[in-house]
């Protein structure tokens, strides 16, 4: 292998990495404004009559999932809107933990966004009308990061809380199961 070829391969690799990184940091600030509508989050895993499988996720999901600025802003909102007061830094409290592998109402980003927007019957408040659609998606993106769903180059390498919580780059990725104890 010639050194020139090796160099170009390296350059190509770097370019690909840079592009991926660009995508990671994409803020969509110049894209078409998103409609201020409630995320059409799907229900938790359930029976889908005469269909057999859940409908595809909301197309907006991929704009936010794994998106570093969205998660960073989501973390800010998570603290400012007092999500942290109930769910702590993912360990749970008044509300269920968000860093584990159980999702009462589904662990997909659109399902989480729907939970935030609509509330849930056992105590989750409804934030519809208090947060914009965009903010809700960002919060959902951050919530997913608590269980290690995004790639490690998209999350913060330093914990934002004062107590010694593990940096998100070290958060293990949990599978997303539907909770078997939705009544709790």
């Amino acid at each position, binding site marked *: 292998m010639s050194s020139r070829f090796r160099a170009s391969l390296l350059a190509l690799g770097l370019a690909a990495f840079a592009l991926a990184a660009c995508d990671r940091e994409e803020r969509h600030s110049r894209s078409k404004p998103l409609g201020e509508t409630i995320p059409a989050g799907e229900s938790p895993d359930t029976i889908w009559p005469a269909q057999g499988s859940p409908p595809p996720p909301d197309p907006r999901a991929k704009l936010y999932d794994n998106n570093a600025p969205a998660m960073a802003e989501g973390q800010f909102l998570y603290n400012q809107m007092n999500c942290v*007061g109930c769910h702590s*830094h*993912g*360990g749970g*409290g008044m509300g269920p933990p968000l860093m584990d592998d159980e999702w009462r109402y589904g662990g997909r980003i659109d399902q989480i966004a729907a939970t935030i927007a609509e509330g849930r019957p056992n105590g989750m*408040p409804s934030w519809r009308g208090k947060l914009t659609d965009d903010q809700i998606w960002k919060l959902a993106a951050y919530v997913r990061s608590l269980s290690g769903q995004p790639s490690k180059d998209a999350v913060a390498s330093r914990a934002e*809380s*004062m*107590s010694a919580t*593990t940096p998100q780059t070290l958060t293990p990725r949990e599978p997303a199961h539907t909770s078997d104890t939705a009544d709790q």
Partner: protein
Amino acid sequence: MRRVRTALLGVIAVAACAGLEACNKGQPSTAPIKSEPLQSGEHALPASAASPRDDGNWVMPSKDYAATRFSALNQITPANVSKLAIRFTFSTATTKGYEAPPLVVNGTMYLITPFPNFLYALDLTKPGAPAKWVFKPKPLAASQGVACCDVVNRGAVYDAGKIFFNTLDGQTIAVDANSGQQVWRTQLGDIQKGETITMAPLVAGGKVFVGNSGGEMGVRGWIAALDEGSGKLAWKAFNTGPDKDVLIGPRFKPFYASDQGKDLGVKTWPPDAWKIGGGTVWGWLSYDPETKLVFYGVGNPGPWNADQRPGDNKWTTGVFARDIDTGQAAWFYQTTPHDIFDHDDINEIILADIPWGNGRRPVILRPARAGFFYVQDRRTGQVLSATPYGYVNAYRGVDLKTGAMLPNPDKEPKQGRVTRDICPAAPGLKDWNPSAFSPLTGLVYIPHNNLCMDFGAMQANYIAGTPYVGADVKMYAGPGGNRGAFTAWDPVHRRAVWEIKEDLPVWSPALATGGGLVFYGTMDGWFKAVDARTGRELWKFKAGSGIIGQPISYRGPDGRQYIAVVAGVGGWAGAVVSGKMDTRDPTGALGFANAVKDLPMKTTAGGMLYVFTLPR
């Protein structure tokens, strides 16, 4: 033997029949108390008007108005307790923290569960104690989302043919004790503001006294009195705000200068902060029939981040004495002005008379959350002594001249930084779970914690119906490594007589009996009987879930003494199990998760009544 019996008789006589069943029957106790009993002239006794003779029932969580949690029944003794055996069980169909005691009224047992607050009546006259009825109040499910520390209920109360209890979503309900039919229900709390009700009501003088929870949600704390017959509001006193709201008038005579002045409930806060400043009433009430005063402790100020509320934050973290007819405050003592550690002052208040000069002085005994055991004059609130009953470094002590808590500046949290090694931690040296007080020994049996914490204070935003805390907390074991302790405290000589170190925080209340025993449970499910005089463990039983419930003792329809407790781990300390938390986050459950990371390996959630008696 004759001398022993005479001595025993003497003790019983001097005890002025204070709650001793033997007096009731006019014959000496058969309890073979072997060690030489203390002369009761030297030790504290329950206030006699507030602790009537034991009729074998258990009609209120505190057993009596003096809050002794003492049963005079004495068939079960240190000599025979090893034979104590299970008699029957009952599943409550709940898996959340079970803090309430069973009640027993003339052959029927009543159980009030955590959310959804089922009320069961069990027929003790039939084999196996089958259910007579169940009352389901159907509280709003959303109330679970504003209950800070598990969806507990601390008990029901029986009076004059009715059972009274509160629901998580802020209702007080009266149910006919025979039929299980609702008599009245009154909505007092509003979950949209973050208010819940978890406390056990107290019934006295034809009124039902109820207070709110939500000190972590930016609510404004209050106590209300409802008419016992109709449920109509008789009076309501807030614990913050202007004097007219607090029911402070001409009768108010606080002992210390720091509690005197006009509208301190407004002036000791930044503008309007008193409206969302906490000061709830989620703990225990006592009542003195002689003075017609109800005593209760007030919860923490909010938010926990104290930099957002400079000032003394009255009337939070202190004790009120109020007239039951009008609600007018008689006196107040602020245990910790400007609380900075969530050291609510809601713990039990035991009414006692202690030796003083040549006579006795009416006092209240308070093993307080901040870590000091208070002896205070019942008529004025004057602090007679305040002694730490465990390890405390968050305060330097209590100035008996001014009544002031002396802070330790090294341990004062500041916004934007973490303050480490604060002892006791936020749940205090002792949290809500009450002590028992035995007139036989004059000792207070204190189930408590030994926890310290790191406290990171940060800006809290007030959004109604959401937490208003502003703190990242991480708790861990205090000096010695044991996270809990069970301490027998002599309130007169101000010292521990004995102490049992427990690995886990002790979150169950205590029960003392006329047989000379003390019962308590552990969070890994052991239910223990120890010798009231020595603390020696004499019997234990492993329950299916951790125990945080109040044990009781009653006389069954067959005349035998029974011991009953419900096992169901949870509460703030056990929320890691009942709330299925992830303990990798040290700040979970407001920082308690870190202290009990091992609990999910040691117990599971449940809700089961266990009833014990001696074999025939």
